[in-house]
């Protein structure tokens, strides 16, 4: 290699690890850049200075929105209002306006619930699990992914609440309050666990997201040009100054929140899967569900992250911060979790045969070759075949292709939930009660409208809040490293 000579010349001062962790001894300042082969790929391209990062990210929500923002917002807002209108129609008329009925009493509503809650999981995975694993590339995408989590949980929460029909009764069966007979909710039911899991998930995601936002809100406060902005950003940034005594507690709190969110994210979709797995229905009653649901959730969540981030980085010219390398790494997560999902599909079939239960085997044969065969094979095409295209680096680094494949992942994961829910219950033990579920127009447009809610919230988020974690992106640049020449380290310093 051409750089070999320069590299070996620059690698003279070796480790500075000794004593760096005891607070009594001041750390040695080593002034040489790491040898070229040990230099990580840059997380911000073109060696952008710190001020450029501030200007570029804060600029997105400080400048007027580009022309496309308004039509996109109006369309999303219209979709959201359509959904609320249809929910009002449902509540006023009854659940009969949807296509579900015995034997398929759970259909699009619960499919949509699991679909949306699964999408949320990528945000928490990126912010929490990748934080614990010291994956520094997460900093470019964690803020928007966490926002996506919150908005997806908001969409998810609507469906199980309204599918009960009489939502005004929710006060009695969601929080633990005794009913008119003084009977308490019973905690042996996974449905009640789910209430606690999803509401904890929503709350903790909000806390985590807000904690991350505080230093960036201070940036917006300090750059604000009008009084209202300064007051609002100032209020929500709590008077943050960037004091190191504060950073010290803040970093610890952030790490602990990551440590709390990691078991949380794994538990939430496990508990969602208990809604099915704890029942006796063939096709649902399997122990593979918790890990299989968690892998599927991360798979679908990364699909949605890519669906949102790829247009965002292009439209706001953030290519130096959300680089092709970031896109490629996300594709690898999709490849890994997609392979787990594919494995789970195969293992389910194997166990259905190997377990020796004729009902279980029938449920699976019916899934693939019964009346819903089209849903099953759509799922297989999208979830099992499409992620394996990411073995190719050419495809992983082509953002247009990645965006298209991520779309297939989103579609496939919706079909997965539909397949699991509807094909398992539309034919139960008694052939005389078999049925075939067809959605009504209310089903379809309520689901379409939930995308309106999701996109409305996301577009408002881009408009008013920094969509990328400014302080975290800065912290992973060499300019932020006091031991790197770009961070000001000098020869013979100290």
């Amino acid at each position: 290699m051409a750089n070999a000579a320069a590299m070996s010349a620059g690698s003279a001062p070796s480790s500075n690890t000794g004593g760096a962790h005891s607070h009594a001894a001041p750390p040695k300042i080593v002034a040489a850049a790491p040898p070229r082969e040990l230099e990580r790929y840059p997380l911000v391209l073109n060696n952008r200075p710190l001020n450029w990062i501030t200007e570029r990210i804060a600029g997105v929500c400080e400048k007027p929105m580009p022309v496309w923002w308004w039509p996109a917002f109006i369309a999303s807002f219209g979709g959201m209002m359509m959904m609320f209108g249809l929910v009002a129609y449902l509540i006023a008329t009854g659940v009969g306006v949807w296509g579900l009925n015995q034997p398929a009493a759970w259909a699009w509503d619960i499919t949509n619930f699991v679909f949306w809650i699964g999408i949320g999981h990528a945000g928490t995975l990126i912010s929490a699990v990748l934080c614990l694993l010291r994956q520094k590339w997460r900093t470019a995408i964690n803020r928007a992914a966490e926002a996506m989590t919150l908005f997806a949980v908001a969409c998810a929460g609507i469906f199980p609440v309204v599918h009960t029909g009489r939502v005004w009764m929710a006060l009695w069966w969601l929080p633990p309050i005794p009913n008119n007979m003084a009977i308490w909710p019973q905690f042996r039911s996974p449905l009640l666990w789910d209430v606690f899991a999803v509401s904890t998930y929503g709350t903790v995601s909000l806390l985590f997201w807000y904690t991350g936002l505080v230093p960036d809100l201070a940036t917006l406060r300090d750059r604000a040009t009008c009084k209202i902005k300064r007051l609002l950003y100032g209020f929500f940034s709590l008077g943050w100054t960037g004091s190191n005594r504060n950073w010290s507690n803040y970093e610890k709190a952030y790490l602990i929140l990551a440590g709390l969110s990691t078991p949380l994210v794994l538990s939430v979709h496990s508990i969602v899967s208990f809604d099915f797995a704890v029942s006796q229905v063939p096709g649902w009653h399997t122990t593979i569900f918790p890990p299989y649901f968690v892998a599927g959730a991360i798979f679908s969540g990364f699909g949605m992250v890519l669906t949102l981030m790829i247009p965002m980085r292009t439209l706001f010219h953030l290519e130096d911060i959300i680089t092709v390398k970031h896109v490629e790494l996300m594709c690898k997560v999709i490849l890994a979790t997609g392979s787990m999902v594919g494995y789970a599909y195969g293992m389910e079939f194997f166990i259905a045969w190997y377990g020796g239960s004729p009902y279980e085997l029938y449920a699976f044969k019916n899934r693939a070759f019964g009346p819903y065969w089209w849903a099953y094979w759509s799922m297989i095409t999208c979830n099992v075949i499409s992620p394996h295209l990411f073995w190719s680096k050419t495809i992983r680094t082509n953002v247009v292709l990645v965006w298209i494949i991520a779309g297939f992942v989103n579609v496939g994961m919706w079909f997965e939930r539909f397949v699991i829910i509807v094909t398992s219950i539309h034919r139960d033990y008694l052939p005389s009660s078999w049925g075939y579920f067809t959605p009504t127009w209310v089903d379809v447009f309520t689901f379409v409208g939930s995308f309106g809610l999701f996109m409305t919230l996301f577009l408002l988020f881009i408009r008013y809040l920094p969509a990328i974690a400014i302080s975290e992106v800065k912290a992973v640049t060499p300019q932020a490293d006091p031991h790197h020449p770009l961070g000001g380290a000098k020869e013979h310093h100290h």
Partner: protein
Amino acid sequence: MSATQTRPVGLLAQYETPADLLHAALEVRDAGYRQWDVYSPFPIHGMDAAMGLKNSKVGYFTFAGGITGFFSGMLMIWFMNKFDYPIVVGGKPLFTPLFAFPVSYELTILLGAFGTLFGMAFLNRLPKLYNPLFNVERFRRVTDDKFFVYIEAIDPKYSAESTRSLLEKTGATAIEVVED
């Protein structure tokens, strides 16, 4: 009333790079100051050690929150399903920690997270919407790309001249008196 009296409350020194800031922090700490702090747009690796800070105490608040969450979950379920209105459902026991676990686990995390956030806010004395540093125009860039050391006048070692000369020696690019 109208002419608000201002008085100097400390000295603020500006630096251009994290390495200069780290170096300055070592000097200020070694000079024996106690009422001082450094300010940066992002946390700087090694700064806690350079300032002589101890490990953050946030974890105690998390632990208190988590323990409270777990046991209040267990107690709530025991009270509702076993004590106050026992109903046998599906022949299952009225209370065991097993079926009570998922909800208690979620409450552990929920209250642990609240403990973490409120503990961090308490330790950092936030929210604190007024700060004399906000009167300094150049301090606005602390959330952008500038680095600062602030030594408060209440520090026993503080003196307008010697503190200033210490900060000058550490390579500050600007030194300003902060007034309140």
